[in-house]
């Protein structure tokens, strides 16, 4: 008797049964020995560094720790829904900067991570770290993650091409001077109407550079109490400046992007200067080995002579999930990975990330010179900048505020293309006020946040 539903249906049914069986088998197979602690991270360079020292910890405490490298996108979105729905989560998680805001959106009790504030103060660890970093990992004055880094920002440049152009990078002390230099070197080399050499890599549709430039001037999106504060003259001035560097005939910037587009731009010399926080300097070393010896680092130009010459971009923090069954052990692991001076020095070699632990900045590993950057001491440069890194306060609406800033920027671009620089700043300021009010409205709507303003 032929299968009444036809050959196709029969085939599909058979496929369903077979694949179902395979799937069941592989998932059961996976349920083997569960380690004592599972830690999820998303940065490959962190993974290498941690694996080196993990053995020591496991021996010392007689436990098994499993380190899992997960893609950042997956980690964030899966974690968000898993924490809320009670699905299985790792014991420790490295979080991306700004994401704490999302996890802390609801009532304080709903935050899926352990409150670390008491432990930090009791064990007298609080002041060992660069204190401005706690701002990134706190909500309503409770600290939920241990800061991994400081991420001071410098400028990375094509040393060889800059030398050929006879530019003295040490003279680029302010953004005004940088702008002047930029205008001189942004030119069309092959006569096709498009410039083939730009001074600075600046994104056109994302706000990381604007944010970083604002933070450099201590201009926050939100203040310590979580209130919206970005509608100021400083912000307007910065955005106006940004527009003029990226648009029009006098522009000096190109968006090199990421991935393979960025690699090509750097190799071809399409863009000469790049914003470079410490983590990116390692990315360049790893992704562009053919530029060995051809890159250099200088601090950011200041907005006013003598002012801060760095900013901060990104960050990772280590949080312990409330679901973790061995929270004390997890805390020991966190301290082991983040607070051990000699290890931090070794790790610096692998990641270029300057630790927030101030005492570690004197280890030789951090002070050594790097051939890739023409003999400069990457560690020295970044640790000097680390002292001045600005704080960064977060809110569940950090992403929203960031989007609004981008919108203001894009509106400013339209304005500039139609009417030029006249009145640009004023229009930006009024647009900022409108968007800031919008964020204030959204914030005010959040009954959970508004209800549970915890005052410790």
């Amino acid at each position, binding site marked *: 008797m032929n299968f009444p539903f036809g050959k196709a249906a029969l085939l599909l049914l058979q496929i369903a049964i077979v694949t179902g069986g395979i799937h069941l088998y592989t998932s059961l197979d*996976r349920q083997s020995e569960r380690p004592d602690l599972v830690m999820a991270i998303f940065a490959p360079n962190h993974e290498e560094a941690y694996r080196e020292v993990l053995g020591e910890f496991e021996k010392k405490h007689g436990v098994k720790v499993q380190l899992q490298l997960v893609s950042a996108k997956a980690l964030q979105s899966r974690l968000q829904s898993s924490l809320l729905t009670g699905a299985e989560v790792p014991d420790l998680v490295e979080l991306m900067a700004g994401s704490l805001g999302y996890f802390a959106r609801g009532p304080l009790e709903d935050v899926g991570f352990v409150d670390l504030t008491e432990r930090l103060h009791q064990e007298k660890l609080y002041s060992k770290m660069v204190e401005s970093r706690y701002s990134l990992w706190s909500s309503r004055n409770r600290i939920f993650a241990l800061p991994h880094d400081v991420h001071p920002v410098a400028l990375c440049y094509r040393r060889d091409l800059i030398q050929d152009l006879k530019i003295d990078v040490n003279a680029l002390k302010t953004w005004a001077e940088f702008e002047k230099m930029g205008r001189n070197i942004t030119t069309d080399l092959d006569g096709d109407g498009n410039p083939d050499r730009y001074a600075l890599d600046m994104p056109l549709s994302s706000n990381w550079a604007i944010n970083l430039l604002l933070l450099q001037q201590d201009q926050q999106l939100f203040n310590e109490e979580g209130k919206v504060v970005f509608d100021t003259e400083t912000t307007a001035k910065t955005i106006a400046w940004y527009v003029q560097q990226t648009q029009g005939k006098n522009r000096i910037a190109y968006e090199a992007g990421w991935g393979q587009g960025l690699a090509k731009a750097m190799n071809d010399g399409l863009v000469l200067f790049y914003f470079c926080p410490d983590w990116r300097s390692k990315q360049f070393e790893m992704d562009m080995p053919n530029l060995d010896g051809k890159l250099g680092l200088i601090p950011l130009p200041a907005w006013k002579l003598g002012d801060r010459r760095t900013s901060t971009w990104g960050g990772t923090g280590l949080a312990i999930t409330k679901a973790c069954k061995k929270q004390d052990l997890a805390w020991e692991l966190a301290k082991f990975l983040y607070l051990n001076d000699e290890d931090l020095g070794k790790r610096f070699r692998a990641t270029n990330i300057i630790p927030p632990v101030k005492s570690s900045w004197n280890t030789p590993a951090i002070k050594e010179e790097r051939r890739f950057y023409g003999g400069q001491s990457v560690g020295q440069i970044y640790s000097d900048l680390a002292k001045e890194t600005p704080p960064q306060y977060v809110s569940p609406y950090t992403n929203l505020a960031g989007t609004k800033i981008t919108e203001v920027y894009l509106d400013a671009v339209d304005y500039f293309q139609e009417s030029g620089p006249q009145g640009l700043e004023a229009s930006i300021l009024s647009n900022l006020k409108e968007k800031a009010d919008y964020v204030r409205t959204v914030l005010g709507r959040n009954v959970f946040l508004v209800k549970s303003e915890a005052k410790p």
Partner: protein
Amino acid sequence: MNTVHTTLLVLGALYVILRWVFPRDRELSSAYLRYLLLGIAAFLILCPFVWLICAVLKDKDVLMQYTFLPPLTEWSSETLNFNNFLTLFAGEETVEGVVYFWEYVINSLFLASASTSISLLFASMGGYALSKYEFQGKKAVMGFMVGSMMFPAMLFLAPVYKMIYNFGWMDTYLALLIPGACSVFGMFLFRQAMTAVPDSLIEAARIDGASEFGIYFGVVMPLVRPMTGAFCLITFLGNWNNFIGPQVFIQTQSKLPLPVVLNQYMGVYTQEYGVFLAGTLIAIIPPAVLFFALQKEFVSGLTSGAVKG
């Protein structure tokens, strides 16, 4: 003036020449024009596919350098290789251990075929009831069915999400298989197809002592195989390509089907686009194969609803 322009010019000139050389044979130049236009359309449609195949074979260092393939002089294992596939299948680390790409393929295959099988059963049963029976409340049911089709699926996502959480089905395949298991569209399709089955056959079977279910199973279903084929294809396709369901309901990496995984990979393989493009190529194959096998049924099934009203 470049190759593209010259080609177009030559093709256009050919049409004019045909008109001129065979002034009485309108059919010839018409046919030529027709196939020319269709050819251009087909070319535009196929371009991305051809590009995809080329892209997955190119080494990551040269992906952006050549639009399609490197010139023959540059062919070597450095420029053309299967590295993208190797990376793709090498397995990725996740919170629960290493997961391999073929596991995601299995997941997709399972979800699509299982849900199609279940849907097939339920929709054909429902269609049969509506087609071959008269009963009290039939009008009400059909009216309800039509009405229910007017609401966008998105409306139900949030409450169903909450419901799945309350059932404890979060992160299981039940959440993906059960809620959509009976499609109204499917029931209408089967109802349409079954009206063609002669009542006399059914009566005869009844007289022979067959049970109602036996009639459905043994008499009616075999006669609507074309529609079954169409329905299977449509449902399989819809399920295979479903993104938002798994994205929202599945948390464990190893249970994810292809659409969600490949979307994730866009953010992971930022220096090696070829890897997730290779995954995309693989993801396109099973539906394509099924479609090849069920082409005819698909077209007739799809249009039977529309053309008749």
